[in-house]
């Protein structure tokens, strides 16, 4: 294993030097001594070569898109085009301060303006704010908009949001953050919303409905028209969790099938990199009647050029980010959309769907699939056969996949499928890659029969072996113990 940067520190080493002080005013002449730190912070001291020899080998311990398939359901781990990384690093994008005069930001503002419009067109919604910094913040922003809408209408009794039991965990968490009570909707035997149950729980307190479509089983909610009608009948709002928009682009517009607002995950659908857990970007799109509540500012355009539009600030929910959100992520998403165009985006959805169905076809004889319909961009297999027959769990199978050079699927989610493995290959995987992954899955199914012990002890070839999560909680060692 690698030492930490703290263990590599040698007093006096430097990884960077600054120019000589000029002017050099004694610190305590400008800042009162009692405010000054007495003991320097123990930042480790390394040379540049030490830093490189730490982080470059460390990087090689990660799985990444460039090493192999990342079949994480709902996470949409697609390839991140290298040109975008190069363009986004232009000094004219990197070195802009958010409070520069608008006249000096016209290039970036134009991009953001066009991105707002493109997302509106893709979603069939009327207005888009790019401000939320991630998908979950997009959800929060959307639910805050629902809250503001009802408050503006005096709907003070509306205190509940309905969420299906197959939903991402962020959905209920986001509702709670806004102060809503969550009502859980059951799924039916087809893996879709149970309409009868929905009717039984909708009432005047229903502020909105939060749906993922295609849902987390990879299934299109084909009763969407009726659902929307039920919700709208009580003046509820239809919220789309856009995590799975990759399956719909160019095929279906959410705004045309009953949704009033949604968030986008630029780091899923629009090929911006996940960054090991962020930064992402979670723009929100809404129908016209909700536009007054969007965060400020939007990006506007008039005869003088592009500008920060605060014109609706009185009705707006305010802000969810210090400035305008994760601009560098937006730039990449714009590059993506403008490179692909309408036909390209449709191809993305088509190929994502074909890839998922192909992979399902390859492995369906080896793993149980609770909802074996044609899927959209992802499907859920499970290890119930393996668990029952050989005592091998989904966790074991996930870890064994790591040995074979693949990342694991999203596991134990959605919660409604026992031993779930939620698999989303995305359109950037080739047939060869899917074939290889399926072969690995089939090999593992065979190993479950022949050598379940191997599965329990997996992974064997990774930088570390199976990690003790329980101990981590017990010890709670979350920072390196520094010594003087």
């Amino acid at each position, binding site marked *: 294993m690698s030492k930490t940067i703290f263990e590599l520190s040698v007093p006096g080493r430097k990884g960077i030097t600054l120019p000589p002080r000029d002017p050099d005013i004694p610190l305590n002449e400008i800042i009162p001594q009692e405010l000054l730190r007495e003991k320097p912070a123990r930042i480790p001291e390394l040379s540049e070569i030490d830093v490189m020899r730490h982080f470059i080998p460390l990087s090689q311990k990660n799985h990444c898109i460039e090493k192999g398939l990342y079949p994480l359901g709902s996470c949409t781990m697609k390839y991140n085009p290298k040109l975008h990384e190069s363009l986004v690093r232009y000094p004219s994008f990197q070195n802009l301060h958010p409070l520069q005069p608008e006249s000096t930001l016209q290039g970036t503002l134009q991009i953001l303006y066009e991105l707002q419009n493109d997302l509106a067109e893709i979603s069939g919604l009327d207005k888009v704010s790019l401000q939320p910094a991630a998908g979950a913040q997009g959800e929060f922003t959307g639910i805050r908009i629902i809250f503001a809408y009802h408050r503006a209408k005096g709907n003070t009794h509306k205190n509940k949001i309905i969420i299906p039991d197959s939903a991402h965990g962020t959905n209920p968490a986001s509702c709670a953050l806004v102060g809503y009570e969550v009502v859980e909707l059951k799924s039916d035997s087809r893996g879709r919303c149970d309409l009868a149950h929905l009717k039984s729980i909708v009432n005047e307190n229903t502020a909105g409905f939060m749906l993922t479509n295609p849902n987390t089983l990879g299934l299109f909610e084909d009763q969407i028209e009726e659902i929307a009608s039920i919700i709208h009948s009580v003046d509820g709002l239809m919220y789309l969790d856009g995590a799975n928009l990759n399956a719909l682009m160019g095929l279906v517009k959410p705004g045309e099938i009953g949704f009033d607002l949604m968030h986008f995950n630029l780091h899923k659908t629009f090929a911006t990199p996940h*960054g090991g857990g962020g930064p992402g970007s979670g723009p929100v799109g809404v129908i016209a009647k909700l536009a007054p509540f969007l965060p400020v500012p939007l990006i506007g355009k008039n005869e003088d050029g592009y500008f920060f539009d605060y014109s609706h600030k009185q009705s707006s929910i305010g802000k969810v980010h210090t400035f305008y959100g994760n601009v560098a992520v937006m730039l990449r998403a714009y590059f993506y959309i403008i490179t692909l165009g309408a036909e390209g985006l449709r191809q993305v959805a088509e190929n994502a769907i074909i890839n998922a169905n192909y992979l399902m076809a390859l492995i369906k004889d080896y793993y149980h699939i609770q909802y074996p319909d044609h899927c959209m961009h992802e499907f859920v297999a499970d290890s119930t056969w393996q668990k029952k027959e050989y005592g091998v769990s989904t966790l074991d199978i996930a870890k064994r996949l790591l040995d074979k050079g693949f990342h694991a699927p999203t596991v134990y989610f959605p919660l409604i499928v026992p031993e779930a493995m939620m698999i989303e290959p995305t359109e950037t995987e080739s047939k060869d890659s899917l074939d290889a992954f399926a072969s690995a899955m089939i090999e593992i199914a065979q190993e479950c029969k022949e050598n379940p012990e191997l599965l329990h002890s997996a992974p064997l070839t990774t930088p570390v072996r199976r990690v003790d999560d329980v101990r981590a909680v017990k010890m709670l060692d979350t920072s390196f113990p520094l010594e003087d």
Partner: protein
Amino acid sequence: MSYIPNTDAERNQMLEKIGVHSFEELIQVIPRKFRLQELLNLSPPLSELELTQLVNALASKNIDTQKFISFLGAGVYDHFIPAAVDTIVSRPEFYTAYTPYQAEVSQGTLQYIYEYQTLICELTGMGISNASMYDGATAVAEAILMAVRKNHLKKAIISSAIHPEFIKVIQSYTEGIGLELVFCDIKYGRTDIANLADKMDENVSSVVIQTPNFLGNIEAMNELEKVVHSNPKTLFIASVDPVSLGILKPPSSYHADIVTGEGQALGNNMYMGGPLFGFFATHKDMARLMPGRIVGATVDVEGNRAYTLTLQAREQHIRREKATSNICSNESLCTLAATVYLSLLGKDGLIEVATQSAQKAHFLANEIASIPGFSLCYPETPFFKEFAIHCPVSAQKVIQDMLNKHIFAGVDLKSYGYDENTLLIAVTEKRTRAELENYATALREMNYE
């Protein structure tokens, strides 16, 4: 350029294996009337060459801080970033990786987050740090919510001297749950201690102070803390500039309970304001109340040191509506930049960045104060690298006039509710003495008086 590898031939083979004759068969489940019959109305696709040409044209419509000399701050700062930071951050192994849920193939990400957490703990003096928040604003908003989880009190006092945009975000984050926000006055550019004392009561869940505050001034944290903790249940929330911690007392020294801040200044490009990242640290015994991811050290089955995401039972993907926050994606790659940046700077380097920023800011402040008609807004109040000046004309006019001299003069505070002649000026170690002198000379030559 579609980035889709499969050819038509492969697509057909795959459809055959699936057992359908066409793609359309796969989406029969979508009601026909919902299926788009026409292509989206987007501009035509571009090749990589055309995209490059377009982006060159668009980029040239920006004027960046390499072209004009920048004295803009207000939360986002133009500090020097060693090239080696991007050498690391631009490695696909880091930037195309997913959240490190599968620890065995994510040790690279997990270890740097652990190191980042350690650095934040060391800078702040706190016991535990999370893996990051979206920005300084959401970090402090979530700190207020965490305080409520801790003490179940329903009022927060916010210093009016904190960043005005932080206040807006706090309002967004707290309005739904009905938290009462009370604002504390400013006096001499800092939080008015007497006013705070007046507003303190038994229902105060937390008090939020930023230091250096929005105006650049260093708050009297020791004195403020005594007032805050006059109610033993009240949590003292500090929002700090991490660079300032190179030379200023750590928040632990003034008994802060939750320490947050905007981390961009640590090795991250400005990008017109995003991505930023918020850091978040607290006492270790409050770990289970924290929002966000946390990495812990542990061992693998062979007993080797390993890292993993820990205390996940607090998080949304496990605990759903009872989670400590809804945050999922955070700003991981930005914390990698911060970790590499601090590793390169080292102990002395961070002190040097902080010291030179302070020295240069004070030099410029003195120069400006000597120009007829100009004065410091708060001449008696200590500041770090940023300060407010009173101009003889509107700040807007000064900014426009200086723009003609290729200088971003500072931030106009009018829209934040200050006098229209107030200009906020930030200085980092990147500014040369010549640039400072040019700034002063340019102002002087305006002859506003």
